[in-house]
């Protein structure tokens, strides 16, 4: 029961999903939509597990006065601040409309934090390219050259440096060519490989040959 049912469920659901792609007839026509909704519902239930885990670990930290416990308290307060605002003080379903308490927290706390975290990439892109773009081997040199020309080709300075060349042969054109031709070829190879890898992994999972998640080893 414990082992067999999940394996069977995986197999049946997996095959039904594949079949519905080729069969427009009822009831297969609603399966994709229905299953997607079900999965979203399962995920919406599951979030309780995660959130309770986060709160449990944080409050344990606070209770035991573990290292950095005040920050664990910040996690708990932050969580309750927005959930209480969202569930009780933001007008129910319209919780996201501008002017609600939920929206205020979203705009003034959530957004700057997430936008700044995203913006850190500007720094990391610089430090990573300094380290990685070095002509150590032939492969690394290709990486370097492609990156270098594409980067230069995308700012006015690049074209300024090559303004003595006829139009169509300047740095921005070279950058465009690299993107459209060799880059495209590499991307295609990667994408085709991924398709095969996914097909094989899916089959292994559906057939129960790979049962790490669904059935134990």
């Amino acid at each position: 029961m414990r082992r067999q049912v999940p394996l069977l469920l995986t197999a049946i659901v997996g095959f039904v999903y594949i079949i519905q792609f080729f069969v427009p007839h009822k009831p297969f026509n609603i399966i994709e939509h229905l299953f997607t909704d079900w999965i979203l519902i399962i995920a919406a239930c599951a979030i309780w597990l995660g959130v309770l885990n986060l709160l449990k670990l944080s409050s344990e930290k606070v209770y035991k006065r573990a290292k950095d416990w005040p920050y664990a308290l910040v996690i708990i307060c932050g969580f309750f601040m927005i959930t209480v605002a969202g569930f009780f003080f933001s007008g129910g379903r319209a919780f996201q409309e501008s002017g609600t308490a939920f929206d205020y927290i979203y705009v003034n706390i959530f957004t700057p934090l997430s936008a700044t975290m995203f913006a850190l990439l500007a720094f990391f892109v610089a430090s990573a390219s300094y380290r990685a773009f070095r002509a150590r081997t032939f492969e690394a040199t290709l990486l370097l050259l492609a990156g270098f020309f594409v980067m230069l080709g995308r700012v006015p300075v690049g074209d300024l440096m090559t303004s003595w060349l006829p139009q169509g042969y300047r740095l921005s054109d070279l950058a465009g060519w690299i993107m459209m031709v060799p880059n495209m070829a590499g991307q295609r190879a990667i994408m085709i490989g991924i398709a095969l890898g996914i097909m094989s992994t899916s089959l292994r999972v559906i057939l129960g040959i790979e049962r790490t998640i669904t059935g134990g080893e």
Partner: protein
Amino acid sequence: MDSVFSHTIAAILTIGIISFLYKDNPLYKFCESLFIGVSAGYWFVQQYYANLLPKLFDNLGITKLVGAENAPEGALQALFLEGRLDDNLLYLIAGVLGVMMLLRLSPKIGWIARWPLAFTVGSSAGLYFITYFQSNAMSQLEHTILPLNSFNNLVLIVGTVTGIIYFYFSKEHKGVFGGAAKVGIYFLMITFGASFGYTVMSRMSLLIGRIDFLFGTWLGLVK
């Protein structure tokens, strides 16, 4: 006044995150913890209103059952009041699967969470099997079959073919085959370099947005 206050909060949080670049520090720890707490709560609320409420409770009619105003009639009302089997009754299965997932909290019957997990894994395996074959394999193939009438087409075809050869697992990369795989790696390296270089610009603009907020919106130094 209100906007000065909220801008100041936003500015402190912005500086707190940026300060991590120098080293880990109390302000960053505060921002990080606040971010984790607030964002976990954000998705918790979001999941309820975007999925649980409309997809499960509304469809089944539970919202109506608990006496909410303006709630739509659901499958349960149809079944018990009209004696009719509504399609939405199928959402009951989703509800059961969801509850099974939550039973993970109980050590004794927690194993049953594997059922909804198996359902999810199975349907994604089925979905990905088909969609990736279609969108990644078939349509890329369609666009790679080009007439050999230009240098660009030649490069595209050679690059794609050798790239695929690089991924070949069950043959040693030696001789002509190994040579082709080597060319494949070269193409992959150019691809990586190019897409890296390509994104640098947009990453910079993200930071410009934050800097403009700090010096413009907040401090009013940049017009």
